[in-house]
């Protein structure tokens, strides 16, 4: 029999649990890290502090241009040599978070740079304090522009959580592979994986597209 309903139902709870407990949790934690770290790096680049700014740019470019699996192994195998012990899940959150922070920083920068010069000039003309300029003028406008991009990156990251298979994080796809290996039934676990991913990411990307149209400033 090619597709066994009973078998599919039997493994569904285990897969869903792995999805909720690892895939989703890791996505959320890595997103928070990426959002915070990305902001820090964007500010450093924006501040144009001579050497620091260039180093940050170079680092961001390097992170974006190298594969997540290599970064995972680097952190997972090299840090313990230096006396820092990190678990697989922590490594995963760290690597995904830093990797996507490099994209987030780029998005933040684009958002801030997209604010027309006139807005800054008008704020100066009204002699608004710097804090108000950022809080009331620049950030609210920038935020609208970058929200859909950030959302799309989170969806991309969500689909790259299975890369953590490289360091044996027991997330959804790793569980499916385990089930396949022990039962020699691969069709059900991997099809269910695909369906779970599709059901989670398709509505999310449709929502992002809607948000994009809704937030568009005219």
């Amino acid at each position, binding site marked *: 029999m090619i597709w066994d309903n009973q078998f599919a139902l039997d493994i569904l709870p285990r897969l869903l649990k792995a999805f909720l407990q690892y895939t989703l949790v890791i996505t959320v934690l890595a997103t928070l890290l990426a959002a915070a770290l990305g902001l820090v790096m964007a500010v450093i680049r924006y501040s144009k502090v001579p050497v620091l700014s260039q180093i940050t740019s170079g680092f961001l470019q390097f992170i974006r241009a*190298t594969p997540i699996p290599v970064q995972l192994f680097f952190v997972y195998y090299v840090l313990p040599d230096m006396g820092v012990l990190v678990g697989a899940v922590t490594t995963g959150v760290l690597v995904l978070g830093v990797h996507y922070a490099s*994209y987030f920083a780029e998005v933040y920068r684009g958002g801030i740079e997209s604010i027309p010069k006139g807005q800054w000039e008008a704020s100066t003309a009204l002699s608004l304090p710097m804090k108000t300029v950022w809080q009331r003028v620049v950030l609210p406008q920038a935020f609208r522009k970058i929200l859909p991009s950030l959302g799309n990156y989170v969806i991309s990251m969500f689909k790259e*959580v299975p890369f953590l298979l490289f360091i044996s994080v027991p997330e959804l*796809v790793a569980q499916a592979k385990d089930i396949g290996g022990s039962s020699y039934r*691969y069709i059900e676990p991997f099809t269910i994986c695909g369906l779970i*991913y599709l059901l989670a990411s398709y509505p999310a990307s449709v929502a992002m597209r809607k948000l994009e149209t809704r937030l568009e400033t005219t």
Partner: protein
Amino acid sequence: MKGFDLGPWLGLLGHGLWVTVYATILGTVLAVIVAFALGLLSLQQHAVPRTIARIIVEFFRGTSLVVQLFWIVYAMPLLLGYKLDNQVGAILALGLNFGAYGAEVVRGAIKAVPKPQREACTALNLTAVHRFRRVILPQALPLMIPPAGNLVVQLIKSTPLMFLVGVVDLFTVGDEIRRGQPGSVALVYLGLLAVFFLLSMAVVAITQLLENWAKRRLGQKPVRISTATVAGAAPVGEVI
């Protein structure tokens, strides 16, 4: 790094590098074909081909590449009773997945060609093929090339997935060196990072050369060649 000797590994490293480059090239070729096929289908007037293309694109974009790879390598043989070589399976997964993202790039770029261009073609009584080859495509190409280049960088970054299905690529060779030469971990992974970085930069440079070529054909100004724009702000598959 006392006692680390790269010598015995050079042959294997060369092989791994070749497998990675080879998978990138074939994956890209397949992705371009898939991208044009699906992109053009999704621009058809008839609802049927358009819907089919949309479903395929959303399917490949919505399920993770890793899932697709495992499905092709492990589940498909049980379904078809025929087993593809794992390397072929990996290239297929890369090509289909990035082809689906590329379809959005193709679609967006062709839609961005101004409507009067099409109307002028009708006025001049050009055939559909002529119109596409000589008017629409040359104007859409410079728009497609930068996001397509970003996708190829993403594709290179995904080639280590071959390790998961037992294909001996550059990443796998790195892992073997790590096991064979204790104490070489930092060096091995810094080396791998450097090589992948250079490969990505090579793609960025080629992308810019292609973009300039496409722009010159239109009489537009070329962009300055620089590697400062790697994998820019557009997320994978974001509609341009």
